């Protein structure tokens, strides 16, 4: 449960940062034009200049998730030494449901497995590449093939549009040691 708590705090801080950014942008805009021209047409004049700045702050609303929902990596365990380059990873989800990408049933999402990478931006769709695997069919496990060495794995749930929830549902980032063989 502590993982979920941390995840939630991280999410809230992220939101807070965005809100602050939005507020400060608003303050700058409000102060900027005022001394120059006291006439009403100020807002339209200021708008085009402010638009590029305001756009990132007005991020889409993230899909809500209940506070007690969480995801975890059922296997492997953190620190696991795996004597095969091919192994199964199963995804645990509690107090929440799984749904394929493109569906928008409340309290559901689909899994993403982050491999050897940090968390992506939580307000944007999760990238889709070798380090960010999408399970848009609603899969709850996968078979990975990784080269021998040290790797990290982390699960991140996202909504029908691949954007993490609010608070974001993510597992602990675990480290595994893949050995040749098997």
């Amino acid at each position, binding site marked *: 449960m502590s993982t979920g708590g941390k995840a939630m705090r991280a999410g809230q801080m992220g939101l807070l940062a965005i809100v602050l950014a939005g507020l400060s942008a608003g303050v700058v805009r409000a102060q900027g034009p005022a001394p120059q021209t006291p006439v009403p047409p100020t807002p339209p004049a200021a708008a085009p200049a402010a638009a590029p700045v305001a756009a990132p702050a007005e991020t889409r609303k993230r899909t809500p998730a209940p506070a007690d929902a969480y995801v975890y990596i059922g296997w492997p365990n953190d620190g696991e030494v795996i004597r095969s380059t091919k192994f199964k990873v199963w995804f645990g*989800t509690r107090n929440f449901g*799984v749904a*394929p990408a493109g569906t928008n*049933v409340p309290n559901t999402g689909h899994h993403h497995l982050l491999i050897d990478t940090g968390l992506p931006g939580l307000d944007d769709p999760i990238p889709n590449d070798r380090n960010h695997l999408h*399970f848009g069919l609603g899969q*709850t496990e996968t078979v990975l093939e990784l080269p021998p060495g040290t790797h990290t794995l982390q699960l991140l749930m996202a909504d029908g549009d691949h954007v993490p929830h609010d608070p974001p549902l993510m597992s602990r980032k675990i480290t595994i040691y893949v050995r040749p063989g098997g």
Partner: protein
Amino acid sequence: MRGFASCCFGAVALGAVLATTLAVSPGRAADTKPMPEDARVYIIWPADGQVIQGGKFWVRMGLSGAGIAPAGVEKQYTGHHHLIIDADLPPLDEEIPNDRNHLHFGRGQTEARLELPPGKHTLQMLLGDDNHVPHKPPLYSKKITITVVP
């Protein structure tokens, strides 16, 4: 697997609901939806023969080669879990009954909180499509027996 077990026992019950009750319209012959031949469902935990103290536990439901979708969401090669407790498989060409012995997980859940009285019990999983009808071929797990001790 021992890790899962201790984790499972460590989990505190949060007023957990056994299953989401979904209105199932009375049995109607439905089209059977296809599933890949290599897809399968299985009970991750508990293990067959597991002895469980106290009778409150989480069942972890595994699915390989296919995906989970909530009831009512139609997408090829997906379905939602049903857990059959102390009962045999229902007819595989009809909607799965919805009662104390046939729990539906129509919100796409992959874990089920159970509370069972002391004694021997059987558990078996059966995947159902968006209309709660098993697929073709039907995906059901091995029927396992567990023993609950007070």
